[in-house]
């Protein structure tokens, strides 16, 4: 049995989640907390394996609640209404989430991911997320699944991302390359507000490593020349004008 706890300040979502969880025979609902403070108390007292945690509560955010806990010995599925910023932060940190109102099939998929995911990975992702929130963008780490396993990559170490159909190759400043099973669009969505720009259908560049912008290519700090697609030339120039000072 999976021992669960629901933490949400919306009575409708609490009831909905409870009813939807009742569809699953291997779920044991240990309790329901109405806000972050009650959540902390119930987490300590009930010791669940899995927590459905509201991202934005009235007394604190789900992340603030997690930061108040001394240790995290459970996995978390964040629950949120559509909010671009919250979802982006959750995805960036490779955390799991459900959108309100909860779709039964999505819940089923999330539970199946929970069963497959190791508790250590989940815990590390949360710790990484909390650390990222306390750091400026360029010191944040991106959690990725590569051929070598789960790795945390500092954004400052990424010079370029090269797309290759369903995969992406992350080029690090050290010269190392990491092949990961994410498309370039996935990575663009995660990184476009963190100093990265998609200058070409196959390339996403980190502004910190742009040495020169010439005509239709970019020269990177490692000497690589990256093409700027004709279609993106004007938009790239505008972005570069806005961002080169922050380089």
């Amino acid at each position, binding site marked *: 049995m999976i021992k669960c706890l629901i933490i949400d300040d*919306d*009575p*409708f*979502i609490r*009831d*909905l989640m409870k*009813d*939807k969880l009742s569809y699953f025979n291997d779920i044991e609902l240990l309790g329901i907390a109405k806000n972050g403070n009650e959540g902390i108390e119930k987490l300590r007292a009930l010791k669940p394996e899995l927590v459905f945690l509201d991202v*934005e509560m009235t007394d604190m955010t789900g992340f603030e609640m997690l930061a108040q806990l001394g240790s995290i010995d459970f996995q978390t599925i964040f629950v949120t*209404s*559509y*909010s671009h910023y919250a979802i982006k932060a959750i995805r960036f940190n490779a955390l799991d989430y459900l959108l*309100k*109102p909860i779709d039964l099939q999505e819940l089923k998929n999330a539970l199946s991911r929970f069963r497959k995911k190791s508790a250590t990975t989940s815990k590390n992702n949360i710790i990484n997320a909390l650390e990222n929130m306390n750091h400026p963008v360029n010191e944040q780490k991106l959690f990725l699944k590569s051929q070598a396993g789960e790795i945390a990559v500092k954004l400052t170490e990424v010079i370029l991302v090269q797309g290759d159909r369903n995969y992406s190759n992350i080029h690090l400043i050290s010269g190392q390359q990491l092949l990961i099973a994410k498309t370039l669009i996935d990575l663009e969505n995660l990184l476009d507000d963190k100093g990265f720009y998609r200058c070409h259908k196959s390339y996403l560049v980190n502004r910190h490593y742009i040495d020169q912008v010439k005509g239709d290519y970019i020269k990177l700090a490692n000497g690589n020349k990256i093409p700027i697609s004709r279609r993106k030339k004007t938009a790239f120039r505008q972005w570069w004008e806005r961002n080169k000072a922050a380089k």
Partner: protein
Amino acid sequence: MSEPIIDLQALKELSRGNPDRMLHYLYQFKELIPKRSAELRKALSASDRINVRKLIHSMSPQVQFFGIKEVVKIKERLALGYEHIPQEEMNSSVNELLNYLEKAVTEVSKLINELEQKKDHLKYD
């Protein structure tokens, strides 16, 4: 007679034909939506855009669950422009949304009466 604005499909699926469970969610809608609508009116008259956004956001799951498409559309439109749309446009959109919610609450109240009556019939038959 005008078309109903709420869609009970999700509620029926969730409650699996249990009238008490259906009533629970209907009563909850009837309780929470007017309360939040009143707060939304207050936030709107104070031109408090942050709270307007927050309150619409908080109603959104229930509104989606009850399939109130018109409100979802307005909510999405507002989501794109909370920070920059002119106050006049904000006022008219939020008022439109509040009107739909009012209609939805009336429909829900009617449904509650119908369901309660059905339950009584079953009890005394």
